[in-house]
């Protein structure tokens, strides 16, 4: 982080009405302007890194709505995240962090094995039992929340079942590398399956390198920049060994992180090149709107689109998903209020900051329900988890789906 980026904040306050935590609290300490000021005061030596300042900084969701709103191009969310990384570098990782961020996350095999007991837990009916008996109430609240977020898991992670090369249907127009996000593979494999299907239908050969590692977003959440860099170097080399037109992902969080590899590894040319090739699935599909239009069949439904922060704020993608939805015949799209306001998921924020997350989520759910839509469409696994849980509890008739699932359904319907 450059000090001048802090100075660039002119304290105009334009970010305040867009910040989910300010909207809930009206507190300057919970606003982007306030957080930039805090970081600057710490750098200046007027304040210290202590329990209080960290409390204020960790309340930030890093949704980056402030970056969209800022007239001077200050990205308060990113500055806070980078500041936390720098602090972490001084102190080092704790035992648990080392275990999770360095030993588990970087290894898809271990991650998949770690999920195995969970799959058993669901399959054997133990989950139903636990939920009815309320046994989880006896465990730490974070565990209870994590359990609650878990939707039914697919039988096998997609990484295991997907071929390394999926050929193009018909004439081959190009080759894409598919970056399969961990959560997409482990939990939302249906959606990623749909993504690959759409790509190959449009004439792309899809290469999904089996040995790819996590994008590094969990490490960023854990303020472990070194961990992100290691993952980045690995993935850049792996994808670099193929001749690719684009690197595609259907996970907003991965996309945002992959596009930042260049920033994380300043001076590294191949990382910058890698980042330049990364596309969110909606960006690539929107390029083929005409072809898609001919292939899509009617879906008479009412849907509403939620702009995931990692897609709208971090990648500036708003128009493409809407354009894609508009292609589906008979699909009615009803815009919600503030579609680009965070749902409170924030990676692991909903577990780390349950109270604030719930307040932010409530606002989102109200906006969704006000549209009268029976489908909520988005394209980021964090939001899918968060909104699936919330809506299944309150209004089960509203289904939550990934954009590619909907498009793929229209392809066959």
């Amino acid at each position, binding site marked *: 982080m450059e000090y001048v980026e802090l100075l660039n904040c002119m304290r105009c306050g334009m970010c*305040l009405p867009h910040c989910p935590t300010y909207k809930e609290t*009206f507190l300057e300490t919970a606003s982007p302007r306030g957080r930039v000021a805090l970081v600057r005061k710490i750098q200046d030596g007027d304040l210290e890194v202590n329990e*209080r300042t960290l409390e204020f900084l960790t309340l930030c969701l890093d949704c980056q709505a402030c970056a969209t709103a800022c007239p001077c191009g200050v990205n308060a969310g990113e500055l806070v995240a980078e500041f936390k990384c720098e602090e972490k570098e001084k102190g080092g990782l704790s035992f648990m962090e080392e275990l999770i961020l360095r030993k588990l996350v970087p290894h898809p095999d271990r991650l998949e094995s770690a999920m195995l007991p969970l799959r058993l837990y669901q399959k054997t009916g133990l989950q139903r039992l636990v939920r009815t008996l309320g046994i989880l109430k006896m465990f730490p609240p974070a565990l209870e929340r994590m359990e609650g977020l878990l939707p039914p898991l697919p039988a096998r992670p997609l990484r295991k079942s997907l071929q390394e090369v999926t050929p193009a249907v018909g004439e081959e127009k190009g080759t894409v590398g598919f970056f399969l996000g961990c959560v997409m593979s482990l939990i939302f494999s249906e959606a990623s399956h749909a993504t690959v299907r759409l790509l190959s239908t449009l004439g792309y050969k899809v290469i999904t390198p089996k040995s790819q590692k996590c994008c590094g977003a969990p490490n960023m959440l854990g303020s472990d920049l070194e961990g992100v860099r290691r993952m980045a170097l690995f993935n850049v080399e792996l994808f670099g060994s193929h001749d690719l037109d684009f690197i595609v992902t259907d996970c907003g969080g991965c996309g945002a992180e992959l596009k930042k590899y260049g920033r994380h590894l300043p001076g590294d040319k191949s990382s910058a090149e890698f980042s330049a090739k990364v596309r969110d699935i909606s960006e690539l599909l929107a390029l083929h709107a005409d072809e898609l239009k001919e292939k899509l069949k009617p879906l008479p439904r009412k849907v509403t689109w939620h702009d995931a922060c990692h897609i709208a704020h971090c990648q500036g993608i708003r128009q493409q998903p809407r354009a894609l939805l508009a292609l589906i015949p008979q699909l009615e799209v009803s815009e919600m209020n503030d579609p680009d306001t965070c749902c409170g998921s924030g990676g692991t924020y909903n577990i780390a900051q349950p109270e604030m997350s719930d307040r932010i989520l409530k606002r989102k759910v109200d906006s969704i329900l006000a549209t009268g839509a029976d489908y909520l469409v988005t394209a980021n696994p964090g939001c899918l988890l968060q909104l699936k849980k919330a809506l299944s509890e309150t209004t089960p008739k509203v289904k939550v789906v990934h954009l590619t699932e909907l498009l793929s359904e229209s392809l066959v319907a």
Partner: protein
Amino acid sequence: MEASFIKELQGIVGKEHLLTDRESLAVYGYDATPELESAPGAVLLPGSGEEMARIMALCYGNGVPLTPRGSGTNLSGGSIAISGGVVMQTSRLNRILEIDQENLTATVEPGVITSTLHKRVEAIGLFYPPDPGSMNISTMGGNVAENAGGLRGLKYGVTADYVMGLKTILPHGELLRSGGKAVKDVAGYNLTQLLISSEGTLGVFSEITVKLVPKPRSKKTMLVHFPEMEQAALTVSAIIAARIIPATLEFLDKVTIRCVEDYAHVGLPLDVDAVLLIEVDGHPAEVEEDAAGIRVICEKHRCSFFQTAATPEEALKLATARRVALSSLARLKPTTILEDATVPRSCIAPMLKFIQETAKKYDLTIGTFGHAGDGNLHPTCLTDERDHEEIRRAHLAFSEIFDKAIQMGGTITGEHGVGIAKKPYLPRLVGEAGLRVMRGIKGGFDPKGLLNPGKIF
């Protein structure tokens, strides 16, 4: 601050709405004004007018200064507690209490965000015209306290033209009602108008009643390029002299145009010296006629390009250049000093010329944009607070610009208020008599001088 006093404050607002830790107070030391900062001793976020009154009475009784704060977006240091004490933030009082469709009024709490009111009334075909650039975050209380203007000021006037009634809590906690929904009211001094633009030094508004007007039926947006700045400035006066009153008549100078083009790529040619954004609204027939008249005047003043928006989307696109003016300038350098010297409309051309010459004399980058139709310009100095020498020159330049504005029959501030930032210049404008009367008024409201002390004079 004494523990027992803090405890009493806590008794009024509750623990959650009282901040006293050093880390929280540190970020309540600023507003949007550059170079000014001073942390308060406590911050309170009351939840009702009654709580505000009790807080104020308690502070006044204990001799503790109190500074009201809305969203902290003012540009004169008005919400900075330079004498310490308590900052009282009104954000939680954010209810729109009533929209009276028979009398065409809205009554709001002070923490209501300006654009929230816009949306609510426009949904039922009504209109609250004041639209400061900060309307998505500024509070109605802050707007009244600063008498905020906006882009629609030329035709529709400023906040003061819409405030009909106020409930104001006086410094010692007593409630003062002034004005109301009656259109006419000449009972005694016009306290409502006196309280508007009092910058939180006379009382704290707990309820505000504003006038609404019917939403204009149609509007037309135009963007005009001028190869000569002087001609653009003369166009402004000529349009008004032709008895056409556009809702919006905004100006961008060459420095601003360059920055806008660099940042937003809206297609402004770089050899253009000035751009006017003009919007007319009202009855469709009248709008057509005004737009045609404006076109003739612009052409007479040798405009090089005249574009009329055909659709609302196109109108938005044309307005982009003006909308991003400040952002584009602010990106250039870390520190942005935005002023609001204002002159009679007929003096726009010489004033713009004077600003350019002054920038050159002091070797500064100053971009000017603003509400040309109101004579309200925003010369904006792009600098770096770490460069003390340049900051010193910037202050010298602005001092000359203010003097010039006064000389032309204008003012040192058209909408941002005096606060702390313009204090040194006020005596030049209002003189001894002006200051004496203002001090007398302040003493009448606040004999102990505890409400927002150190501001204006």
